[in-house]
């Protein structure tokens, strides 16, 4: 196959597997099925039902979970009558108070600033797509969104809470707060989104939507 003079339409019909770099031709899928790579069996793309509405609903759920996670204490401990609790923000604020500015900044970025940016960005661009407005802004947002993905670490923070609690077992009484369960909900939705909704699908959706309105 000569590749140097393929048209955009022909290129659009090709896909390269992310995991093993095998080149594939796209095929049409039935509803709710997925295409997998012929050499490494990893998912290439899926056929979604109502991708836009589904993503909107999931992002809204994430937002609600995150707000609840910020309002209440995550964990309360009782050490011989002395009670202490943490909230999401107190975790990184303490590091600033202890003058560990870099670590504090990193924690703040990873568990607070990044999730908020991710959700607001995702929500805004989905709403823009829903109303079929601002194509260029949506394009820029999608690019920015994909550069945020490698820094998503809320699930690791959740595991860390559990590890920290195990370290305290035997010393103090531990109560998991409302926010802990909100955080669990947040992580579940987050994992679902990253497993099922790929950037590729979002780009396809974007092209479909703005093509039709032209």
């Amino acid at each position, binding site marked *: *196959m000569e*590749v*140097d003079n*393929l048209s*955009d339409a022909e*290129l659009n019909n*090709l*896909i*390269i597997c*992310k*995991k*093993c*770099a*095998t*080149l594939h031709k796209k095929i049409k899928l039935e509803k709710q099925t997925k295409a997998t790579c012929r*050499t490494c069996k990893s998912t290439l793309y899926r056929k979604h039902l109502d991708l836009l509405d589904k993503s909107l609903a999931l992002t809204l759920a994430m937002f609600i979970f995150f707000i609840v996670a910020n309002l209440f204490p995550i*964990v309360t*401990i009782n*050490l*011989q009558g*002395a009670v*202490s*609790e*943490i909230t999401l923000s*107190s*975790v*990184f*604020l*303490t*590091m600033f108070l*202890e003058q*560990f500015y*870099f*670590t*504090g900044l*990193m*924690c703040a970025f990873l*568990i607070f600033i990044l999730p908020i940016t991710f959700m607001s960005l995702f929500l805004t661009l989905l709403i823009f797509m829903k109303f079929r407005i601002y194509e260029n802004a949506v*394009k820029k947002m*999608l*690019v920015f969104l994909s*550069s945020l993905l*490698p820094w998503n*670490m809320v699930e*690791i*923070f959740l*595991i*860390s809470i559990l*590890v*920290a609690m*195990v*370290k*305290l*077992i035997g*010393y103090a009484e531990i109560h998991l707060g409302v926010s802990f369960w909100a955080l669990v909900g947040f992580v579940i939705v987050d994992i679902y989104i990253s497993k099922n909704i*790929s*950037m*590729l699908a979002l*780009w396809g959706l974007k*092209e479909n939507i703005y093509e039709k309105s032209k």
Partner: protein
Amino acid sequence: MKNPNKNLISCPYCQAVNIDTGDNTICRRCDSKILHFKHISFQKSLAYLLTAMILFIPANFYPVLITEQFGVQSANTILGGIVVLWENGSYPIAIIILLASIFVPVIKFILILYLLLSAKFKIYTKNVDKLRLFHITELLGPWSMIDVFVVSILAALVQMTSVEIHPGVGISAFALMVFFTLLSALAFDTRLIWERKDA
């Protein structure tokens, strides 16, 4: 050793298939520059990796956690903390921390170093396997953050009159180390795997 897909590459931002025209290909769908400056990618990735490796030393020798109980201070390094957990019988957690804080960074150092070296010298491994190794480093990377989070959580939580936990200098070095290994993996251009120049 050429790219098996001839001159086709997929955009790292939107996965659209593009024709590779050299060092400054601009994606036809999302307008972002696709991995320009390949030669700089190698240098950048190597520089970040070396920084991370150097930081790994203080991260292990300085205490990460300082416990102050009734005025008596005791400091724990990462390995010390693992030993304490093991002695207290929390074997699974001890193993998780050992894997996340010691093994993951070391494995990442070795893998990225190997991938970088094999981009420069003749080391015979299938390119597809190398790509798989790169994806493993990407997956493993964030897990070393566990220790940083645990220390922040404990420092925020245990602030009583009788017992206080403070972060130690080691955790700054550790956090920086994780940060630089992540940057190193991000800077690594997968095209380095395909396009080794035969010297």
